């Protein structure tokens, strides 16, 4: 699965997510990615989220919408992302990851899986990583 969240110069937020699904899936299986609120959610008044991971768990938990609602309730992007991803994993015993931007441009990245690749550019520098707790940076 791949995804992106963006805020443009007008303050508008958009999110996109695309996937091949899970290996060994049945013909006709549909996961979280095309189901709005599970794999993707955006609201200019709050922020945007794209998710990845165990699709059946993500859609049961409405993970993307859960993160947006936690931000709407006052949590920052990082805390909301970590709270919802870990909450899903604790409740359903499967892993996931999510990337989040708040309407003010706060970044949230969290995953309960072994690895998740992510990247963004700010102030002329790449910030990126793939391991738990890893934040690498280099000149853009």
């Amino acid at each position, binding site marked *: *699965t*791949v995804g992106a969240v*963006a805020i443009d110069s007008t303050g508008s937020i958009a999110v996109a997510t695309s996937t091949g699904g899970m290996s060994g899936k049945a013909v006709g299986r549909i996961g979280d990615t095309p189901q709005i609120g599970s794999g993707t959610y955006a609201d200019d008044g709050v922020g945007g989220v794209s998710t990845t*991971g165990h699709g059946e768990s993500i859609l049961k938990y409405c993970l993307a919408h859960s993160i947006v609602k936690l931000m709407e309730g006052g949590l920052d992007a990082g805390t909301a992302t970590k709270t919802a991803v870990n909450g899903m994993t604790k409740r359903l015993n499967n*892993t996931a990851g999510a990337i*989040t931007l708040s309407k003010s441009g706060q970044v949230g990245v969290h995953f309960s899986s*072994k690895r998740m*690749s992510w*990247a963004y550019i700010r102030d002329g520098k790449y910030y990126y990583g793939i391991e738990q707790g890893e934040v690498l940076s280099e000149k853009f």
Partner: protein
Amino acid sequence: MDPIVLVHGGAGDIPDSRVAGKLRGSKMAAARAHRLLQAGGSALEAVEAAVVVMEEDESFNAGYGSVLNLRGEVEMEASIMRGSDLAVGAVTLVKDFKHPISIAHRVLTDSPHSLLGAEGAKIFALEKGFKTVPPESLISQNARDALNKFLEHREFGRTEIGAEHEGGVG
């Protein structure tokens, strides 16, 4: 407002052999979308551009290189959402187009519906001028090998594939 785009390339038990490709591809996707935003592009255009980069890259489970279903076929899904008016577009069970995210974008802009699947998604895409590709052109050797390994071991939920075919979700 300072424009920004954040991307991910999938979560799971990503094997060591796939790490470099995912980091490179994620940075490329971020760079493409960042430049578009800096040039005045919209957030919607930027997220589509980022995802298109990763759909073209075998390092990711989307577009070319997608994992296979039990019949050995690619069946892809994508969604896109605009936060200003909560407009959405999504497609599922797409088999023979290179960029499902671009079709989802057209569902958002050009359709009264939110989610189109299977034959309906194909009819819509053709009406909008998208060209089909041979389904086998979207299948990588890694994906074939991963399905064969799945058929041997029956480990559900794995969506990340690597040269050694270790798995993961995502």
